[in-house]
């Protein structure tokens, strides 16, 4: 006997997953036969748009790929282009780029924790419901998000699709007085961020250990953002230029986004992977705050991602404060570039994980070819593996609504940035 059911769900919370997704489940005799997460990844279109463009245009163009993590796209691009030109922008630019990136982590993680993920763990369908019971938590989260946006605006001129970054540095250096005022705000937010680590760890998170490989950048001295080698929890340690050799992409018929694998297996990028691989690079107060929770890191529970995000907010505030201390205005906010031809690589840690760029430039610095691998593409196979595990653990005999809720929670936990176009997850369950 064949029983086939189709369900279309309008899921307002998933709207805030930044895009569109469809999930097909096929269950035969109580076993999961097919599981396909179909997503659409707009950054692919940009690679063609970039061809023929001048190198100066690239930072502003790639910032348009994402409204939530434009800084990450800008940073991967400028590092790749500077790599081609042999340009070293110096310590001031390096430090301020890191602060710029801190702003993005703070705003993106705060948004995800409070507006997307926390309602799942507290039994609310959205943040407005949650806010009635936890007004102070939500207010704190919104204040952190606003501060993150303020840091992005500080360097980028505006918080959405910022325009302040350029190859060689920034278009403008902030004054000492401006920096002092920003640092006051950062300093004032620290107690709240530390409390957020404890709060996220106190949530009733599902206990669901899984076997997965973490992949992240690793830097000799610091928690990774703009620089480092690509490492994995199973021993990989490569230069960013060797990424393509180890992380092949392939097409699946059901998705316009390419899948990326490592040793033919799914892998995880993002805050939990970063934290798992870089615990010893955190500032001491963050390690201590994590130590006061009952969670042991490295963790194999994907739901600990929310705690990792909180820890990274705490870290980013401490790091921004450190880097802005004793600030002096530079003589120039950028180093002039002299174009030359070649291939350059940029790999930075976007809020959602590794963001890898490659640019082939001609002698005038025009783009001949571009390749961009966003974190959500890399996590796509991992999300499917997690869905398979989680739904089977939950029990495939559960009703469709329960299966859908679980699937949505699992997907949301990765904070996928799919596209910004539509508002629905369509789940089709076919039972035989």
């Amino acid at each position, binding site marked *: 006997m064949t029983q086939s059911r189709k369900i279309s769900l309008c899921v307002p919370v998933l*709207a*805030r997953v*930044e895009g569109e997704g469809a999930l097909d489940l096929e269950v035969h005799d109580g076993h999961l036969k097919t599981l396909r997460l179909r997503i659409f990844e707009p950054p692919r279109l940009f690679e063609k748009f970039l061809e023929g463009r001048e190198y100066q245009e690239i930072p502003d163009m790639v910032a348009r790929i994402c*409204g939530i993590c434009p800084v990450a796209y800008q940073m991967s691009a400028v590092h790749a282009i500077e790599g081609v030109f042999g340009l070293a922008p110096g310590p001031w630019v390096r430090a301020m780029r890191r602060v710029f990136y801190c702003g993005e982590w703070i705003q993106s993680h705060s948004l995800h924790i409070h507006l997307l993920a926390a309602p799942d763990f507290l039994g609310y369908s959205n*943040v*407005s419901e949650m806010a009635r019971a936890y007004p102070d938590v939500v*207010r704190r989260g*919104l204040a952190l*998000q606003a501060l993150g946006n303020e840091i992005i605006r500080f360097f980028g001129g505006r918080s959405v699709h910022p325009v302040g970054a350029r190859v060689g540095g920034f278009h403008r250096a902030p004054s000492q007085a401006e920096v002092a005022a920003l640092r006051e705000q950062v300093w004032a937010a620290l107690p709240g961020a530390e409390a957020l680590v404890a709060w996220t760890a106190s949530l009733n998170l599902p206990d669901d250990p899984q076997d997965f490989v973490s992949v992240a950048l690793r830097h000799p001295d610091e928690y990774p953002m703009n620089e480092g080698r690509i490492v994995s929890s199973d021993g990989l340690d490569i230069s960013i230029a060797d990424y393509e050799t180890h992380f092949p992409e392939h097409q699946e018929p059901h998705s316009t986004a390419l899948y990326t694998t490592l040793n033919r297996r799914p892998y995880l990028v993002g805050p939990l992977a970063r934290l798992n691989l870089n615990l010893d690079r955190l500032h001491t107060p963050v390690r201590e705050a994590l130590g006061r929770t009952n969670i042991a890191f490295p963790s194999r529970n994907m739901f600990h991602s929310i705690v990792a995000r909180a820890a990274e907010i705490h870290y980013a505030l401490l790091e921004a404060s450190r880097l802005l201390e004793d600030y002096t205005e530079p003589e120039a906010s950028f180093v002039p570039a002299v174009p030359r031809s070649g291939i350059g690589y940029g790999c930075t840690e976007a809020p959602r994980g590794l963001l890898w760029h490659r640019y082939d430039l001609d002698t005038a610095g025009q783009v001949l070819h571009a390749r961009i691998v966003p974190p959500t593409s890399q996590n796509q196979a991992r999300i499917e593996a997690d869905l398979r595990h989680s739904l089977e653990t939950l029990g495939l005999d559960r009703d469709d609504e329960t299966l859908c809720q679980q699937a949505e929670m699992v997907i949301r936990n990765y904070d996928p940035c799919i596209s910004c*176009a539509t508002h629905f997850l369509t789940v089709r369950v076919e039972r035989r």
Partner: protein
Amino acid sequence: MNPVRVLGIGSPVAGDDLGWRLAETLEQAGLPGYFPAGMVHVTLCDRPGSLLLPAMRGARLVILLDAMRSGAPPGTVRRLDMLELDDSTGLLSSHGFGVAEALALGRALEDLPPRVLIYGIETGQATSLPPLGDLVTLLWPTIIDDIRVCMKEPGVVPLAMESKQKSGGASL
């Protein structure tokens, strides 16, 4: 802090900038200058999401200009008080967390101005919209009235500003 804020909601993406263009046109037509200095401020908000709340904080009246899709002919203007807003309103959002969600969150947190008015403009193909000038002509008297009503509330116009008005500072 401007007691009246006119916020154009949207993004630079083609078709999602209607709220911006209307706000810009209202500003260029002299809306802030029609009232005493500092009373009315026009801002363009790029997909503000939850950041709509700080953008409105401290105001007595907020007028939101946003694209809407409810099946009405393109160019149809719908004026709503925030209290009337529900899921079926049809306000567009290029991200999931749009104006309706931000207002619901603000209501839950008791973090909203006393009055929020939403001017939803039915959108469609760019070519099927009436000229912006026609839309502004349509909106102008209603928005002026909205602001006048707000200004009559106690404490909205500072005393110094009131005496300036009486001496002929700005036309009302």
